[in-house]
């Protein structure tokens, strides 16, 4: 009885595993934090370049193509990094800063589109694709193994008439196969 559902169970387990990993890694990437609370702003100079880059890494330069903001060398980008520094000092959180940039320059400044609407396809499609590929592969291999088993049955029926083959030492078997391989 259980055996009949085994494949479905494996499928669900696979989906959960892949989906769970996926979800966690997305969430981990978008984890929010703030340097200080808005009631106690820091002096701007106390926010280090490293703190700025940690946010800028997840933003793409609004003017250049495909360059993360933390590595972009243009004048405009260094001004944007100063914006980030000021906002961090004023107590904005990482995600608030990103939201502010998105408001000003559009979705394309995010390193990844927000997981909503059509953009969900970016997050959902790959794991679904992987699992679907796995299922197709599983079914194919199973069908081909069955095909092979049928052939093997007829062959073994034929072989049963003959004397059984002597036991083969694993190492000799390996050498024979190696020779076979080398002589192809």
């Amino acid at each position, binding site marked *: 009885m259980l055996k009949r559902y085994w494949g479905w169970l494996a499928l669900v387990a696979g989906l959960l595993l892949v989906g769970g990993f996926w979800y966690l890694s997305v969430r981990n990437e978008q984890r929010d934090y703030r340097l200080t609370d808005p009631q106690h702003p820091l002096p701007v100079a106390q926010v280090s370049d490293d703190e700025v880059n940690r946010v800028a890494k997840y933003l793409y330069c609004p003017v250049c193509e495909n360059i993360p903001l933390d*590595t972009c060398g243009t004048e405009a980008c260094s001004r944007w990094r100063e914006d980030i520094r000021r906002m961090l000092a004023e107590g904005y959180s990482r995600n608030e800063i990103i939201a502010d940039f998105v408001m000003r320059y559009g979705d394309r400044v995010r390193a990844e589109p927000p997981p909503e609407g059509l953009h969900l396809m970016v997050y959902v499609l*790959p794991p679904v694709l992987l699992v679907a590929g796995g299922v197709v592969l599983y079914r194919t291999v199973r069908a081909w193994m069955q095909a092979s088993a049928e052939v093997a049955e007829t062959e073994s029926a034929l072989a049963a008439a003959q004397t059984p083959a002597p036991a083969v030492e694993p190492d000799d078997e390996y050498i024979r196969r190696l020779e076979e391989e080398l*002589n192809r």
Partner: protein
Amino acid sequence: MVAIIGQSVLIVAWILALYAVIASVVAAYRHRPEWAVSARNALLLIFPLLSVVVALLVWALVTYHYEIEYVHNVSERAMPLYLRATALWGGQAGSLVFWSWLMAAFASAVALRDWRRDREMLPWVVAVTAGTLAFFLFLNVVLETPFKRFWALPDGNIQASVLPPAGARAFFPKDGRGLNPLLRHPGMVAHPPFLYLGFVGFVIPYAFAMAALIVGRLDARWIRLTRRWAIVAWLFLFLGLILGSRWAYDVLGWGGYWGWDPVEISAFMPWLTGTAFLHSVMIQERRNMLKHWNMLLIIITYDLVIFGTFLTRSGVLSSVHSFAQSAIGPAFFTFITLTFLGSMALLAWRWNDLRGKEQIRSAWSREALFLYTNLVFVSMAAVNFWGVVYPIVSELFTGQKATVGPPYYERVMGPLSAIMLFLMGVATVAPWGKVDTRRLFRMVVKPALVGLLLPAWAWWQGYRKPGALLGFALIGFVIAVVLYDIARGVWARHRVHREPLWRALVHLLTRNRRRYGGYIVHLSIAIMGIGIIGIEFFQLETQRTLAAGESLSLGRYTMVYDSVAIFNTNDGRQVARATVTVKDQQGRVVATLHPRQDYYIRDQQPMTIPGVHSTWGSEFYVLLVSWRPITAEGATFKVYYNPLVKWLWASPWIAIAGALLAAWPETRRRRATAPARAATQAPAPASA
């Protein structure tokens, strides 16, 4: 004059390519061998003609013919000779000519082979290669000619065209605009040729596949004929990708080697499907199965090659609108659609004839494992494809462009690579056909245990993230299993043939070159993985402004900022060159680095060249971000500590050795080993 000759020769080459297509189709349909010969000769003529074109263009570049628009756009007098010559592929039109030229070279090499056994395929192979060539030459001649000249119109405007507009005078600029500074680097000089060689190399197996489909010769012959082409194409593409990464690491100044940029990915995708193809054809040769799949893979690889050129050349990446404006984009799009649909139609037509012996005797047999790796490779390619096209999809549907950046790719490629390494290790020792699972397990478990030395070493070195340790364990497993398999083979030959060990090794490697060449490539990929894990998991970075004499520490090093010098060079750069001293943990000076910023004054473009102290343990990578020129009191540095990345740079050499071993012609071998074969048959009956 140069321009007129060049353009004329280009047109003749294009007409010849079209003729070759038509003549070979006639030859095949009407059974007229003389037309096939004629088509082949036309194809053979294209290479010398394009050589003339390339030579003319290089000559124009080297001898300052700035009246030609292309020369004007990509070169200038101040550039050194080697850069002026290689500016041939520094811009759109030139790189397309270069593509066509390489394609013609490969097509000629194929046309010159001995066709006696495969006469019926010849016309179709010629038709497909000449057709591809005709498409690229069409782009060259009609849409993107490198031979446009400048003309001064009567109203004083300057216009670029091949033929003079009415009443125009020839216009001779004194100097060119010069190559994009980012491209003035040895890595960028070598990267495009390798990449293009990889691209055009995959056209050859595709041409044979199509020929096989059309004439109905559906055995593994087309695979056997193009096996070497595929390996060589694979190697070139691989090296092209590595050279590109190295260039990014050295020039782009972001401390990394791979940024998941659409341009990189567009070259990476055909490499993925090409790798899958190299593996799955072996199943067809051995087991007479997966015939559909191999056809599909080579069709996809071919169209991804064209798609890669399309993505980088059509402007579709910057926006859908610039795509609509570029002439070249729609042409590419049409060509890809037609070839893809055409090939798929052929495949569908032959579908039933392609049925092979679709059987797998064990889920852990080598053919089954190859099948799983195929799924992983194709998934990787699909995920990359989706990431690259999604911004375009998003712009089409929402009107707003989205960016799909590294987090997306890392999330997918990390786990898939882990699965890949696992399969790579098991497949090394898994036999074909029937598998005794317990024996396979016994064969795998020893190398797996030995492989644990690598994560143990990593732990001891302080690399302790769980994902990384898992990766190291898998890499250790792959390396151990490959070495174990080679050692077992050597030992067996040593025992059976009483050969000395070194000769047993040489014989083993040269007798089944494809198998052991492949294993050596696997070693290289595994070693590359060490570098990738090092930099991906353990890269440290910091950015700080230092006054002269101040220091900062990162990883195992401390650097002291000494000074910065600012000077102008005679090729139009303003250079700020810092001097920093790097010390190790014991305070010993290990290196003096000179990170610098070159500001190309006319292009208004800064270029950040890192100073790197490289050891097998790590690379200490220093960028000069900004400085205060007058007082020289301080400079801002961005510093990366990239553990183990040197292994990444070293590994391609091993891959070269492995791929060459796998692709080396075996004609001499047959004769040389004929007696040896008789000898090796002796022990076989004893154990059977």
